[in-house]
């Protein structure tokens, strides 16, 4: 088992955990947390590949990770803002009750 393999496994695990959280929790905020976890797993992958990849000096993977961190921050801000505004209208953060868009 190489180091890279280990990192990838950990990333996969974290990703799965995040996905599980996003799929199972009722609280919208926790779903967002799960998504954040997934993003972080992806970042871990990126950086691991950058570290053990052929051209670390090109910085590609790391840059990608840094950018995705920034994007994730934006995503969190907007997502939480949405959750809050939804909460303000329907006094709940329970996703099972948020099915206004039912087709």
């Amino acid at each position, binding site marked *: 088992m190489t180091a890279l393999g280990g990192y990838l496994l950990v990333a996969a695990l974290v*990703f*799965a*955990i995040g996905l599980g959280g996003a799929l199972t*929790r009722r609280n919208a905020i926790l779903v967002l947390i799960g998504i954040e976890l997934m993003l972080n797993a992806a970042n871990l992958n990126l950086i691991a590949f950058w570290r053990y990849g052929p051209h670390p000096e090109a910085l590609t993977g790391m840059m990608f*990770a*840094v950018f995705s961190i*920034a994007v994730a*921050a*934006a995503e969190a801000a907007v997502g939480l803002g949405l959750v809050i505004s939804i909460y*303000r209208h329907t006094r709940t953060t329970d996703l099972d009750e948020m099915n206004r868009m039912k087709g």
Partner: protein
Amino acid sequence: MSIVFWILSFLTVLGGLAAVTLRNTVHCALAVAIAFAGLALLYLQLDAQFAGFAQILIYIGAVAILVVFAILLTRGSDTPTDGIFSRTWFAGTAIAAAVFAVLGWAVIQSVHALPHETAAPEVTVNQIGNALLGRYVLPLEIVALLLTASLVGAVMVAMHEKGESK
């Protein structure tokens, strides 16, 4: 496979698991902060100093706080009485497991093809700065734009309407 790596990954996974399983939402937030910290340390393990510190600064310093605020603003802090998992939790877990299975399988499949230990690349912040303003200047600008937009957007979304009383 250094021992440090195992400890850190254990910490991370633990944090993650706690974050998605604990009852109390605030505990979840704190747990996810732990997970973030673990990931940051993993980055450091991978000689990605800058990314690591950025991770701490942004995720623990900003995102975790943001989550906590959101929780308090949405009265999520008091532990829910009824079930915390949605009705379809089983399907969710199953799918998550499947995902992990597939990913893990993929890693195992290709483990022999993966490159082995390489020398730690010497990356100074200087290089990162040059790269950011050189090759990656366009993404940088776009991200800046995105951040601004999301900032404004978040404010607009979360702001009290005029008529609405606090």
